[in-house]
């Protein structure tokens, strides 16, 4: 084994986690090779020093600064709930039901292996168990019905600026009334995207089942967000 290969064993050797055979190899190499011997001694010294690094005190004002930012953030998200805003946007129950169906498809898209059945009638809105909205990785910023094609809807979705990486989202909708039945999107932090859906028939979607996946670099992937009253 070369010196370089021997040096790959150094940490394990200092932690006594090398197996007997490799320990023997390393020991006999060290006896013959002064360069590696010096290196290993040096590493031991560095290790000892690392283990006694002192801690530093955070500035006294830091906690206040953090809570100030949190308070500002809390204030900025205490706006009317999505459903309230939807009601303002869509005065007719049918239009709202259609919009809510799409919102539901998209919102549910942010949960991991999340399956939900929602029955939408003229006035039954999907009520999905929801976390407070300011924890969500993305939000719907608008839902628009195409002026010329009443079955075509456009949803605008925006990823939070705070997201550490790409948000990947797959939205599958087995319902025949919604097309496309599957949409894959990726959002960068802060990115805004428009997704178009075509809603067939009268705008009523019964038993809409959404299976979706959401992933980001943070790995903690499950968030249940949705419409709540």
């Amino acid at each position: 084994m070369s010196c370089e290969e021997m040096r790959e064993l150094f940490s394990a050797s200092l932690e006594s986690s090398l197996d007997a055979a490799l320990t023997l190899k390393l020991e006999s190499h060290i006896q013959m090779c002064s360069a590696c011997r010096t290196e290993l001694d040096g590493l031991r010294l560095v290790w000892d020093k690392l283990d006694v690094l002192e801690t530093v005190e955070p500035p006294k004002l830091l906690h206040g600064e953090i809570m100030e930012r949190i308070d500002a953030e809390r204030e900025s998200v205490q706006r009317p709930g999505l459903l309230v805003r939807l009601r303002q946007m869509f005065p007719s129950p049918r239009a709202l039901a259609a919009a809510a169906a799409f919102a539901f498809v998209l919102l549910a898209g942010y949960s991991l292996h999340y399956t939900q059945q929602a029955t939408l009638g003229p006035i039954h809105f999907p009520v999905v168990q929801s976390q407070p909205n300011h924890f969500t990785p993305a939000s719907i910023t608008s839902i628009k019905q195409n002026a010329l094609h009443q079955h075509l809807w456009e949803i605008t979705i925006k990823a939070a600026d705070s997201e550490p990486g790409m948000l990947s989202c797959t939205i599958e909708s087995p319902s025949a009334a919604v097309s496309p039945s599957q949409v894959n999107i990726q959002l960068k932090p802060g990115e805004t995207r428009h997704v178009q859906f075509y809603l067939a028939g009268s705008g009523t979607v019964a038993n809409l089942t959404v299976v979706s996946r959401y992933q980001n670099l943070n790995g903690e992937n499950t968030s249940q967000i949705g419409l709540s009253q």
Partner: protein
Amino acid sequence: MSGVAAGMQPEEKALIQRCQKGERDAFDSLFRQYEKRVYNMAFRLCNNYDEAGDVTVDVFLRIFRAIGRFEFKSSFSTWVFRIVTNVYLDRRKRASNRSSLSLEEYIALEETSVTRQLESADPSPAQIAEQNERTDALQHAIAQLPDYQRAMVVLYHTEGLSYEEIAEVLTLPIGTVKSRLNRARLLLRQILQNQQELF
């Protein structure tokens, strides 16, 4: 790791659950418990008190926004360290315009650049004196490690995380963590030897 999460103190779990409901008091207490560790880790990573403060604030904002998605599958501290590491690495990548690189490309690139740097430029005695004024030799040497190696050294040696936990924080295979940490320690020794003749 579910083993770690299972060992979570019930008080901490209750506090996190209150945070998930959005209770301000709960955030206040939870953040007090973690501020010193987060700040220390940030300082070891940034080697700069001001930047450590900025990183710390960013970390807690990110925790605030993401705590609803914490599922008690890992220990909370592992989750927090992951956020600290991400905030720090995001800043570095943004500063060096490397945000489009994959993790492996990023690690490879920063390792070649540090090797070149070590081979070509021995600091002048004046530079060393200046560095000593600012901070101690070891801290300065840590600051010269490539970002990922630096994060690993800090997590292992100053935060006391296990290899398994670091693998979880950085989403890297455990073998990679062990070999990179070994390389990082050897590099640290080389930096210290080149600059300070301490060893």
